[in-house]
């Protein structure tokens, strides 16, 4: 990890603003790239996500199952390019961090935490969210499909069961307590849920039926996490459907 820190400093102007930005782009798009913007709100922090489609969907699950250290090793870490000599000379609490995930080119930043170390953890958490959401971005941009879901014999994967509320009839006694948006494992469930919602063409009621819960309960689950909510609405918008409110 220390070696990653030894690269040259980098700092984009955007990091000076109060807004945290997540800028992800493909390293070298082989086809005409069209960027688009998904605004996200998570834990009260506004951030934006630019995404392009040159990412291999099949890998996203693999990345998300990596441990923090393993994912970090795939990243290039840059921080604020300090003006002046830094160290003892300086008291500015500019502990911004920029993480670039080299295999996908996705970039996550964090600036609002109070230590370098915590900003690194926030940036890494955001990177995970971004990786989970990116398949959705690709859909809008390129009409690529998410991880395929077979509807005929649908049975939700364990990571999705974990984020479902207790009243889902599909939850088993071994599914454990419900995991909320603050748990890092929520992202894996969120990804599986987005895969399902995509497979049923954005219909919340159809997805709810397949998950053994009411449409209202599924809507509440989606609304409980702002980035999930946004992603679902982007997906619905691409199919000409009204947003969830």
């Amino acid at each position, binding site marked *: *990890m*220390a*070696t990653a*820190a*030894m*690269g*040259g*400093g980098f700092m984009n102007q955007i990091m*000076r*603003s*109060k807004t945290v930005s997540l800028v992800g782009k493909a390293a070298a798009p082989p086809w005409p790239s069209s960027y688009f913007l998904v605004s996200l709100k998570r834990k*009260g922090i506004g951030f934006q996500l630019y995404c392009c489609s040159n990412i291999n969907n099949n890998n996203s699950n693999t990345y998300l199952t990596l441990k923090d250290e393993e994912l970090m090793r795939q990243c290039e*870490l840059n*921080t*604020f*390019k*300090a*003006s*002046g*000599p*830094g*160290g*003892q*000379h*300086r*008291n*500015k*609490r*500019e*502990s911004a*961090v920029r993480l670039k995930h080299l295999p996908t080119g996705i970039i996550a930043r964090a600036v*609002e*935490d*109070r*230590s*370098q*170390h*915590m900003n690194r953890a926030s940036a890494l958490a955001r990177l995970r969210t971004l990786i989970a959401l990116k398949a959705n971005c690709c859909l809008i941009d390129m009409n690529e499909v998410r991880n395929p879901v077979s509807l005929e014999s649908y049975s939700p994967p364990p990571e999705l069961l974990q984020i479902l509320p207790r009243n889902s009839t599909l939850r088993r006694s071994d599914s454990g307590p419900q995991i909320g948006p603050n748990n890092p494992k929520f992202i894996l469930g969120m990804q599986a849920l987005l895969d399902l919602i995509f497979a049923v063409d954005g219909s919340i009621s159809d997805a709810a039926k397949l998950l053994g819960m009411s449409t209202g309960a599924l809507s509440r689950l989606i609304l409980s996490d702002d980035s999930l909510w946004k992603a679902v609405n982007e997906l619905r918008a691409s199919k000409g459907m009204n947003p969830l409110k």
Partner: protein
Amino acid sequence: MLKLRSSGLSCGVCANFRIPIPRCYMNSITTSSIDVKPKVPLYLRPPSFSASLSELTKWHKWAKNLASSVGSSFINLDNGPDSTLLRRELNWLLQDLIELQYRSVILSRLESGNNENPDVSVALRAPLEEMYCVWRQRIEKRRPFQYVVGCEHWRDLVLSVQEGVLIPRPETEVIIDLVEGVALNNAPELAQSFWADLGTGSGAIAIATARALATHARGDACGRVIATDLSSVAVAVATSNVQRYGLQDVVEVRKGSWFEPLKDVQGKLAGVLSNPPYIPSGDISGLQAEVGQHEPILALDGGISGTNDLLHLIDGVASMLKPGGFFAFETNGEQQCKFLVEYIENEKPGSFRDMNIVSDFAGIQRFVMGFRR
């Protein structure tokens, strides 16, 4: 709500409100060595004060405007903070001020400017009058934010700091990465013996190192850390930080200069770490006001070339470390790093191996490290 009507020190004049100004305990730390009582940081005080939501909103608007009025004037003056950074600090101040239970609700109300229920009472960890006072100190006196709230977030720690103690810097966080990534990964047995943090200040390096040793130690024997400092304020603050993290059996804080209090562990240390004063004396007067006017000169001024204390550390470290022991020192930058490596190669030939210069997060060559042969 408790009204403080002390007729104490006024701190700066700002005329557009008429609230009595309480005494500001800004310079309550004296240099006397007797009975230094560490101050309780804002976030650890009991929420025994209150203000109505409208009063809090009024203060917040005032504080935000004061921050905005700075613009980039401090940047131009001495490379100090700009309005954006000051407003971010204001949010952190609010986080520490408001009791956790309702914090997010209150913060989003302040952010949105929602005027419902202006009379609702908000529990605070300090009287609002004090907040007017300390925020003026922040802006007008350039008192460091960390002294205002009494803590600094450093790595995954929240360390108490106060006047008289150097505020740990983000750059120094890398020293712990070196301890874990370089020293303990290559030589796990080092996790089982004594380490030293010289000039510990708030105790940051010592505490984080102790936690790293505990993670890396296999089985029973976990290493210990001795932290030294010449300043009695630093010794008191470091001791209280060590206790807050429940490490009093692992980290021992000793008062004294550099290696002086370490005679009993001479030649036995597995690691020596330090962020000594390294700023050249001539640069002190031009420092950012937060640093030059408020932080202890003892922790900053490294003599004419800035290397007085670093050279003293390098001269002593070979005899303090056991064979295979690790050292890492923070420096002023590339020039000092190169000078020190050259000094070691010329003056201490054969004493060390795997010497290296390591850059900080901003890409500035910041640390000199190596192993005792």
